[in-house]
């Protein structure tokens, strides 16, 4: 089975989610035979070594997208390679904004279904099945592709563990973006990076998140102070991101970051399905919420039924006094 992995870059290196998928693709292809190819929307010269180490033997790279959005540009480049005769059996995407856009455009170009939000994949003969958690992760649905490939599937970050196999640097082949016509008319004219400090939310060993139970935006400072004291990262529920209290980059959950820290502290978060799927894999979960019926207590290792406005200041004071 030949597998492509849509490979993303951050800070000059492949993202962890990319390396996770390459590792999984390598293990699938080693059991059933076939090649693993990384498909990069951009320049791949700095990435080929790491992509190769994690299992890719070949890299397709579009080169600089020149301000085109990845969805339309990378899918067109993929279609051009497939039309040129190199068609994979399976294309794996990280469940990210860009991954989702590319796979969506590609699914129409190839007239193939897409299966998203997966956490696992298995291959049994010609049958490829993926596993998707639903209802906040309480139920797992296994779905198989029917009809002909390429099968297109997206996987949530942290579904697999990235491991280097020590492979040689992958060979980079150009896969230029063809003429897009009017569908490619959207153009990025400026890029803004919002400054953050401390550990990254999806890599931090401790995450402290706040929700609507904080009452008002100014109280989010309690969450930030606690996170800083524990050398962790502050996070947020979708409710307070939608309300504009904190930027989207803080959001934990279905539409935000998937986190699996050693300790997750949920402050004033009731535990909507959309939030739980993003943090349920945390090793230890502490929840503070005034409603004892809140769903978050169903998955908490330690639950404090109480007012975050009382518990958090005391907790912060106790930690500060330890120095």
């Amino acid at each position: 089975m030949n597998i492509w992995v849509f490979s993303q870059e951050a800070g000059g290196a492949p993202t962890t989610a990319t390396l996770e998928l390459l590792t999984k693709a390598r293990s699938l292809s080693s059991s059933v035979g076939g090649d693993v190819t990384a498909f990069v929307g951009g320049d791949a010269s700095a990435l080929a070594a790491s992509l190769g180490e994690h299992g890719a033997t070949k890299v397709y790279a579009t080169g600089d997208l020149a301000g085109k959005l990845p969805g339309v540009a990378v899918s067109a480049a993929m279609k051009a390679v497939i039309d040129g005769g190199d068609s994979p059996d399976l294309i794996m995407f990280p469940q990210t904004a860009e991954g989702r856009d590319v796979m969506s455009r590609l699914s129409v170009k190839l007239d193939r279904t897409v299966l998203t939000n997966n956490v696992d994949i298995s291959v049994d003969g010609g049958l490829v099945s993926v596993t998707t958690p639903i209802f906040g992760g309480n139920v797992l649905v296994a779905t198989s592709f029917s009809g002909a490939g390429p099968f297109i599937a997206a996987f949530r970050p942290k579904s697999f563990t990235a491991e280097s196999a020590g492979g040689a640097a992958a060979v980079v082949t150009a896969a230029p973006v063809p003429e897009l016509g009017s569908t490619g008319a959207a153009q990025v004219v400026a890029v803004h990076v919002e400054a953050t400090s401390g550990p990254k939310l999806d890599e931090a060993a401790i995450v402290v998140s706040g929700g609507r139970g904080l009452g008002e935006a100014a109280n989010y400072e309690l969450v930030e102070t606690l996170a800083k004291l524990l050398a962790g990262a502050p996070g947020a529920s979708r409710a307070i991101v939608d309300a504009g209290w904190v930027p989207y980059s803080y959001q934990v959950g279905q539409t935000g970051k998937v986190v699996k820290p050693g300790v997750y502290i949920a402050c004033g978060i009731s535990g909507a399905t959309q939030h739980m799927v993003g943090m349920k894999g945390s090793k230890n979960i502490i929840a503070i919420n005034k409603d004892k019926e809140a769903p978050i207590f169903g998955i908490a290792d330690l639950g404090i039924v109480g007012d975050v406005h009382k518990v958090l200041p005391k907790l912060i004071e106790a930690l500060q006094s330890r120095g």
Partner: protein
Amino acid sequence: MTTMNVIVCVKQIPDPATPGSLGPDNTLKRDGKLILDESDSYGVEMALQLVDAAGGGEVSLVSMAPNGEVSGLRTALAMGAAKGTLVSDPALQGSDALTTAKVLGAAIQTMGAFDLVIAATESSDGYTGTVPEQLAEVLGLPSVTFAKKVTISGGTLEANRQTEDGFDEVTCPLPAVISVTAGVVEPRYPSFKGIMAAKSKPIETVTAGDLGVTPVGWAGAGQRVVSITQAEARAAGEIIEDDGEGFAKIVSYLENLKVI
């Protein structure tokens, strides 16, 4: 004065406040009352604001449902949309996201000239999140996904597009498809007058067959559910009422983990 005609894709979903369940065919049970997906109320609001800013034009709705449910559409009409098209057909049961995009695309082609199609980033019940970009490809249009701020000036759309690290400023000529994030605007509550007016606003109902989209539903889906299992539950934790000393429980818990 310019005019601006906007089509908003809306989904009617089971009330998220009630726990979801699967029917015997392994699709989400949608047989109770369906409501307007809250995620879509942002798109409806944005469309109304863009039409207002242009000084003319109207907001139309397009939706797809296996049954003839219209209560969610009425909510969006009460907010101020002018009319709706509902693709309603029992044959749509089991349709995958690609089929949904094809059906919505075919319906939009019957709705007359438009400048912009708006969809939510993802629905709150199925959250596949692929339909807006699939729809753009079906319609052969440019798109801007994850838009968190949108203005139109001189026939060109300008948007701030959410990224992992911040946002990009993107320009795009019209017509185009955009997906908007929740929180992008503050959706208005329907007024009493709006609710009364919505009752007489037109909703055209068509079938997938009328639109010439086949196959749909299970027959058109490139996927098949093979098993459904309960995930391993987390062991129950210790839940205590705060008596003023709850914070100390957290301190000792963190001490035991050796993180402080």
